[in-house]
């Protein structure tokens, strides 16, 4: 196995990777392709087909990581994606990854896949975890029963993956023939036989005639269309239609209604999966989940569940603030101490205005973003990934579902909100785990009410400067206030969700199932490396790539004068009256607007704008910064208004693009910008009205 970098290799075989949610499919995929598909211990991580290349010996394999699904009878978008790929994706081999601990349920999917194609390898993953729980799987027997190759693996530690790779190499070149087939009710089998005879020739060796016949009798119209599209000609002709009718007549004669057929199929497959599973699974301990249940009893307890959840988050924020303080100050000092030197250096060979633009425009914004953003992210992201790995996140959804139900939405929304703390764009794409379309839209529209990592530093800086006081070593107070701000955001999420489900997105709370995965000990080292590489650097990279041009734009705006007044001031003055209503000034509002590409640069824009008119030279510490702000008319009320508006305004451009992609609608994208902005405007306006009256 080797990571492939060059795009243009000749692909020998195409492999599809299928499996239930949360069985380690992505881990297998990453191990084979060297790609960093994000993994986490909760169902629904992989939301679209990812693909990568694996090299084994002299062969190159293109591997597709299909969304995790319980079934491929296609009731949801993801299931349809997975099924269509297995049917029509022209893959040479499908690897079905199973969880050894819940083999029975996983075999369901295996049996559904073997109905479509016989070129299957079953990978029984998490074999070590099962062993710990006293579950043993007889691999050889399973192999014999299923008629396909079965490989036991522990993908997290890499155990068994070499064997799996060699099996993929071997069996993608051989056509398997004797795969186990689920046998249905004898009359149904007769009916299938009738249709198989009619379509066999018509298929010309494409697709599995038995499977096509089953779906023809079952009247899956969408699938029928897909089959015809795939073949390039209509599958239905007179002969086939009459065979289908004949088959249906036969079924009706024996009291099997067509609309009950799917239930019959599902039940038969389920039963067979249970039978096979019972034959190959051996339990050593009776209550193998005892430890998990003890933890759950505390973490989801009526009295301790929610307080513990809040404490846990408070602890994470506290660690982030406290831990980031020192490295942040250090970075700040370092980056700004070389600013003058850099400026002088540039001055040697560049015209003064150009080095001014480069250093006081671009470099300064960059330095701020790096020093303020990097340390909290380096702490927050790994901590959050640890929680994810541990399996705690679905418990949050479990704990708070009641409130969401009251808002006619889904508890899984809490999961997407938790993701939003990291990045709202991630939270928005995470809403795919919500089955109901209506509830998913609610979750999308309200996701930016939880402050993302790009907004935390702004909030924390303002809390430190204006509320707690600089130099006061009271990070506990800071955290409490930050938690208060976050709770306000969460409260608004509930309020807006509730209003939406009574107006625009009317509906009743829908049914859903939520899987609470077993707790897994996180791989700390791996988590830290992965979260820094995948998330921190990615988010930082994005912020930096936007900070540099933004710094340039601000510098130009601040330094280009029209009739004696800078462009920046012109614009700020224009915004001033409106901003004043909200307790802010034109510069701040302009900063939020210019910060549309990335929220991280709002504060630096404010600083630069004030600097252009002020005479301050050193703002490498918060004292100086606070003075700068106060000199420009900031009061505690300004600070609070900015915090409110920071929490409630249009999502950043990345998030907006993600919303557009997920909803495929301009209307919802526009609404997702309007709703939070309106909330912010109203809240700020009311707040300042109250302040003025008092």
């Amino acid at each position, binding site marked *: 196995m080797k990571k492939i970098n060059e795009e243009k290799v000749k692909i020998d075989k195409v492999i599809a990777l299928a499996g239930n949610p949360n069985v380690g499919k992505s881990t297998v995929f990453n191990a084979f392709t060297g790609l960093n598909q994000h993994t986490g211990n909760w169902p629904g991580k992989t939301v679209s087909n990812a693909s990568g290349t694996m090299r084994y010996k002299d062969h190159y394999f293109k591997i597709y990581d299909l969304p995790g699904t*319980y*079934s491929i*009878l296609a*009731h*949801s978008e993801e299931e349809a994606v997975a099924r269509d790929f297995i049917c029509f994706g022209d893959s040479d081999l499908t690897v079905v990854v199973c969880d050894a*601990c*819940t*083999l*029975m*349920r996983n075999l*369901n999917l295996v049996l559904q896949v073997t109905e479509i194609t016989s070129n299957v390898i079953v990978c029984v993953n998490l074999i070590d975890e099962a062993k710990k729980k006293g*579950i043993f799987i007889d691999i050889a027997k399973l192999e014999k029963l299923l008629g396909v190759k079965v490989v036991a693996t522990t993908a997290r530690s890499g155990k068994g993956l070499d064997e799996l790779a060699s099996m993929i190499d071997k069996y993608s070149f051989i056509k398997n023939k004797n795969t186990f087939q689920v046998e249905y009710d004898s009359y149904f089998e007769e009916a299938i036989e009738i249709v198989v005879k009619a379509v066999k020739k018509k298929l010309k060796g494409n697709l599995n005639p038995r499977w096509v016949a089953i779906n023809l009798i079952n009247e899956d119209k969408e699938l029928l269309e897909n089959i015809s599209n795939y073949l390039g000609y209509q599958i239905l002709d007179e002969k086939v239609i009459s065979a289908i009718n004949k088959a249906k007549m036969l079924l009706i004669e024996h009291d099997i209604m067509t609309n009950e057929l799917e*239930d019959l199929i*599902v*039940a038969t497959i*389920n*039963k067979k*999966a*249970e039978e096979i599973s019972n034959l190959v699974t051996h339990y050593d301990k009776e209550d193998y*989940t005892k430890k*998990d*249940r003890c933890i*759950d*009893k505390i973490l*989801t*307890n*009526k*009295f301790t*569940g*929610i307080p513990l959840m809040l404490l846990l988050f408070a602890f994470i924020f506290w660690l982030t603030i406290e831990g980031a303080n020192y490295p942040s100050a250090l970075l700040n000092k370092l980056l700004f101490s070389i600013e003058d030197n850099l400026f002088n250096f540039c001055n040697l060979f560049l015209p003064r205005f150009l080095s001014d633009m480069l250093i006081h425009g671009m470099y300064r914004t960059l330095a701020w973003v790096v020093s303020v953003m990097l340390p909290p992210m380096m702490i927050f992201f790994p901590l959050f990934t640890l929680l994810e790995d541990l399996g705690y996140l679905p418990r949050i959804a*479990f*704990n*708070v*579902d*009641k*409130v969401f*139900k009251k808002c006619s939405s889904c*508890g899984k929304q809490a999961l997407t909100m938790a993701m939003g703390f990291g990045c709202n764009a991630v939270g928005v794409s995470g809403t795919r785990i919500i*089955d109901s379309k209506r509830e998913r839209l609610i979750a999308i529209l309200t996701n930016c009410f939880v402050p993302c990592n790009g907004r935390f530093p702004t909030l924390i800086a303002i809390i430190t400067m204006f509320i707690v006081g600089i130099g006061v070593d009271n990070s506990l107070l800071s955290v409490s206030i930050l938690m208060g701000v976050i709770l306000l955001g969460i409260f608004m999420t509930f309020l807006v969700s509730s209003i939406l489900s009574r107006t625009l997105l009317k509906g009743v*709370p*829908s*049914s*859903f*199932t*939520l*899987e*609470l*995965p*077993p707790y897994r000990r996180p791989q700390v080292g791996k988590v830290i490396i992965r979260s820094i590489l995948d998330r921190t650097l990615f988010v930082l990279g994005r912020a930096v790539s936007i900070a540099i041009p933004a710094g340039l734009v601000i510098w130009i705006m601040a330094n280009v004068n029209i009739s004696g007044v800078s462009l920046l001031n012109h614009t700020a003055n224009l915004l001033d009256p409106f901003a004043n209503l909200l307790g802010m000034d034109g510069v701040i509002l302009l900063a939020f607007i210019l910060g549309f590409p990335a929220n991280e640069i709002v504060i630096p824009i404010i600083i630069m704008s004030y600097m252009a008119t002020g005479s301050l030279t050193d703002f490498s510490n918060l004292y100086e910064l606070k003075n700068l702000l106060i000199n420009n008319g900031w009061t505690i009320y300004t600070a609070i208004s900015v915090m409110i508006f920071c929490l409630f305004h249009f999502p950043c451009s990345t998030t907006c693009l993600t919303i557009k992609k997920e909803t495929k609608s301009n209307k919802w994208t526009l609404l997702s910008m309007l709703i939070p902005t309106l909330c912010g405007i109203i809240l700020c306006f009311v707040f300042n009205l109250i302040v003025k009256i008092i």
Partner: protein
Amino acid sequence: MKQTRLYDVPLGRKVTVDKILSEGSIKRRLLDIGLTPGTVVYSTLKNPGGNLVAYMIRGALIAIRDDDAKNILIRGYCE
């Protein structure tokens, strides 16, 4: 006599599923996770709000809303 529903089962009891009355996508979902007639289900956890109960179904812990648990009939307790 009205048949006992999964909803009526107190925590810590094992029961056998008899019939699923739900319709549409939730029925599918329940079947997909292996909740078919004859399956033994162990009622394990209740959430703080009391509207979700997590059941041990075929080796996996799965939470279902109370409204849905009302639509699942059971055959009686088994120890």
